[in-house]
């Protein structure tokens, strides 16, 4: 069956540009997570959605980062006025329920800010 998909897989942006990263979770999955993984590090939590509700955005590093999931399915992570320190792999994960379910990760979007 289809897993979590993310697009684009690679994105190069000039400093100051805005970018939008898309996540298509597994169909029917209630929970959706965004993580940032810097080179040589483990994933760092950014934000969590339960259906269309953003229940936790404590990991977003600045107000330049914004995420939405308007219909409780596809999600978009937007980064405004990108900076070099935003360069990382952005991972999306989804899970079936809201309590203790396995998170399934997408392949990530590698963002490089030049």
């Amino acid at each position, binding site marked *: 069956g289809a897993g*979590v998909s993310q697009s684009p897989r690679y994105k190069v942006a000039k400093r100051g540009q805005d970018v939008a990263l898309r996540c298509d979770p597994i169909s029917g999955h209630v929970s959706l997570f965004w993580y940032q993984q810097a080179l040589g590090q483990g994933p760092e*939590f950014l934000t969590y959605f339960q259906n269309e509700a953003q229940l*936790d955005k404590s990991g977003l590093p600045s107000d330049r980062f914004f995420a939405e999931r308007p219909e409780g399915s596809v999600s978009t992570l937007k980064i405004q006025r990108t900076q070099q320190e935003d360069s990382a792999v952005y991972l999306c994960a989804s899970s079936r329920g809201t*309590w*203790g*379910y396995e998170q*399934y*990760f997408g392949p990530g979007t590698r963002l490089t800010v030049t």
Partner: protein
Amino acid sequence: TQLLEQSPQFLSIQEGENLTVYCNSSSVFSSLQWYRQEPGEGPVLLVTVVTGGEVKKLKRLTFQFGDARKDSSLHITAAQPGDTGLYLCAGAMSYNNNDMRFGAGTRLTVKP
């Protein structure tokens, strides 16, 4: 400072050798998960341990959760080149697993 410290950071061994990697923290977790991540892919869950002292086996992989639920280890017996990858541990800060904190990982290379 990472909430979860993984060691060693890098490990290169020959096929057939045994190895153990560690995941340590001063925090108590409601559960702990181990993932393997390959280049260009997202992490894939290997196991979840919940009870202090719990031991789980997955073929040649043995996972142990510390009695105090602050640390964990992964032991691989007779490593194979297919075991090569980044091994990540992640601790759940709450019982619903919606607040996972990852370590930086151990990058394992198994040479044929």
